[in-house]
């Protein structure tokens, strides 16, 4: 997704605060996907993530006056979403929040990737096959929480390292290390499964091998 336009946001916020409330729809729309998926990553439940996303949008509206512009608007919105999600986990008495805030060992660590001797690229068109999307989703949903959040914001919502760090309340170094580990786990898990989605190579006599 494209980064939202900061000038548009500042102007929009000024006009909303001056009374043009309906403009809030345009202001929040570019953020809603990221908000939902951050909350989905935390809460792991579609209905609750949607409810929390709505509450987040209302809190953003009610607190718009407090936005200082020292971070991107979307980053600010995502920190509100994160607090909403953590608050709900806390209320539910979930033990998962401990692992969320815990500073883990962020050294690079060892890992062995799935070893391959060649790779045939799986193109975007392969996503027309529903089972490919399902395999990718399952792999991401199976990641430990602290890796999944980073993958969702960095690789799926395509936010930069700094914005991801601010939204998740972790250091930029931690974002990089966690992303590295998450991608390594995904490669190991997915590479052996994705081969079948690559286009078949034509053999010498024109048949696929």
């Amino acid at each position: 997704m494209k980064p939202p336009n900061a000038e548009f946001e500042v102007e929009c916020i000024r006009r909303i605060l001056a009374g043009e409330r309906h403009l809030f729809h345009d202001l929040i729309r570019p953020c809603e996907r990221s908000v939902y998926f951050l909350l989905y990553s935390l809460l792991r439940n579609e209905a609750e993530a949607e409810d929390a996303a709505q509450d987040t949008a209302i809190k953003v509206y009610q607190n718009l006056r407090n936005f200082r512009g020292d971070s991107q608007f979307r980053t600010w919105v995502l920190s509100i979403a994160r607090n909403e999600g953590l608050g709900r986990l806390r209320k539910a008495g979930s033990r998962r929040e401990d692992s969320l805030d815990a500073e883990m060992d962020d050294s690079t660590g060892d890992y062995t990737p799935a070893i391959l001797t060649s790779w045939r690229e799986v193109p975007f068109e392969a996503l027309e096959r529903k089972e490919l999307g399902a395999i990718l989703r399952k792999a991401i949903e199976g990641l430990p929480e602290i890796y999944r959040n980073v993958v969702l914001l960095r690789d799926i919502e395509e936010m930069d390292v700094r914005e991801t760090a601010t939204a998740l309340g972790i250091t930029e170094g931690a974002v990089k290390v966690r992303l590295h580990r998450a991608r390594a786990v995904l490669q190991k898990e997915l590479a052996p499964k994705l081969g079948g989605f690559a286009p078949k190579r034509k053999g010498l006599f024109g048949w696929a091998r």
Partner: protein
Amino acid sequence: MRIDCKHVWEHISAYIDGEVDEALRGEIDRHLETCEICSAVLDSTRNVVVLVADDRVFELPAGFSERLHARLDREMERAGSG
């Protein structure tokens, strides 16, 4: 000194994001020229990163946006009349 495969794997994520310095990038590139395994690991990792970014993998629930904006409208109306 030639860097080994393990060293390349440690930097794959940063390499994909263009965050390794020029000297290290050069060493990794030289390694990749002759190492089929690391080339395949890099290509497959990059392919995974590109695929998961596609909007079709994670879609918003149907009607999500409509419900969100309808709730905002109700909230703004309530706040406005209060």
